[in-house]
């Protein structure tokens, strides 16, 4: 059953067409991994889903209704977002990063919020660091707080915008493992990443974007082993050489 649907999405920045007619659906519980060279529009596509970026034409539907027919803040609560640069609130502890949304958006009492936040921090393995400030955390820990913060809003779908790109190689594993756990729990995920290990092992489907167009889509094995398009093969081979195909 389709949870998220892109219908002929166009988006341009000045003269440049960033998204040039994207159409596809994401099933509930699926892990959709989007790959493509830089500037291919993958991050923009993600940002359109929670309306950080507005589209020019077409439609994006969540659970059958257009995201533009919903209240913006309510939509964003249902769509969790994890950023490449973490964007943790620098002046708040890990715990407060999670409770802020619970209190201000979901209207939890302080006690409820703290209890719930503790659960989410535990889920990403960071209960010990609850009182630490972002600057006191490693990149991997920051990103896991970022995931906990998004999960706390009880979203229907999670968006990951290159969640491991800003991390030192040895810290990638801990974040990937949290994402994998999430996938196993049945969370619907839309992931932009260069992490081929994760794509191979966890993606239900790979989507290759280039130049704002959807080039090819299919199960990971198919795209890795027998891509239909020359471009897909070249891109994946180069990426695997760069980032290693080892399953972490």
């Amino acid at each position, binding site marked *: 059953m389709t949870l998220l649907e892109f219908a002929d999405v166009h988006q341009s920045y000045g003269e440049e067409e960033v998204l040039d007619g994207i159409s596809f659906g994401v099933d509930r519980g699926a892990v959709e991994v989007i790959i493509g060279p830089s500037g291919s529009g993958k991050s923009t596509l993600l940002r359109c889903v*929670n309306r*950080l970026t507005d589209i020019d034409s077409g439609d994006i539907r969540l659970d059958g209704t257009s995201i533009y027919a919903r209240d913006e*803040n*309510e*939509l*964003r*609560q249902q*769509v*969790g*977002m994890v*950023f490449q*640069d*973490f*964007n*943790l*609130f*620098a*002046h708040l502890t890990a715990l407060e990063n999670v409770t*802020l*949304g619970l209190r*201000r*958006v979901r209207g939890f009492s302080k006690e409820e919020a703290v209890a719930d936040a503790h659960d989410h921090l535990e889920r990403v393995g960071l209960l010990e660091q609850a009182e*630490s*400030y*972002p*600057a*006191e955390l490693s990149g991997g820990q*920051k990103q896991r707080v*970022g995931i906990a*913060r*998004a999960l*706390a*809003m009880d979203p229907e779908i999670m968006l990951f915008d290159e969640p491991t790109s800003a991390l030192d190689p040895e810290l990638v594993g801990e974040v990937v493992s949290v994402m994998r756990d999430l996938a196993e729990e049945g969370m619907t995920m839309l992931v932009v990443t260069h992490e081929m290990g994760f794509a191979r092992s966890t993606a239900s489907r790979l989507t290759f974007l280039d130049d704002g167009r959807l080039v090819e889509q299919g199960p990971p094995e198919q795209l890795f082993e027998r891509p239909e398009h020359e471009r897909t093969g070249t891109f994946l081979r180069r990426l695997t050489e760069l980032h290693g195909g080892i399953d972490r």
Partner: protein
Amino acid sequence: MLLQSGAWEYIAANWVYLGWGLVFTVCLTAVSVVLGFLLGLPAGIIETYGSGYSRGLVERAGVLVRGTPIVIILVAFYFLFPLTIAAFWAAALGLGIRSAAYQSQIFRGALQSVGDGQMEAARSVGMSKLDAIRRVTVPQALRRSIPGFQNEFTIVLKDTSVAYAIGLGELLTRGTNLYLTEQGNTAVLEIFLAISAVYFVLTMTTNLSLDALGRRFAIPGGEGR
């Protein structure tokens, strides 16, 4: 140029009179800085996040105020205010509004330095723009504003002396009054040096206190995200 001991005795004998000047200077600074903050912070927020019209208005008003000498602003408030107001309030309004125009720039710069990512992250969990400004960007920006605010505070402190122009009995005016007496005539240099020294101590105290404030509210581990 001799620094005569008689002159220092004359200054010492008038310490109560000068002391009241100090009180005026300190109160005027405090009221003006607070007024500047109350107007300057919203102005800075509008300049950063406001829509075209409100932003344009605030920006223009800021340029106008920042482009005018403080003495003209003070005299204008004193002579042109529709109601006759005490020199103290004219000075406080003038210095406060001028300070607001500068503080808005400090806060705008600090808000911009917080980065778009923080706003996006706050909006992404479903917070309204106003909530995000209040809970996420402003608290961070305020910390970053402390060095600029420190500057602004001492500038206001020093510029209270310009209230001399409207005859407010602050420190410098009282010093001038002292030297205009018969006895004071021979103590001019000493009087102005003593008063300058008091200002110097005040600016230093302000700076040290705000340094301490900055350390008190620093985010552990620095400013990483």
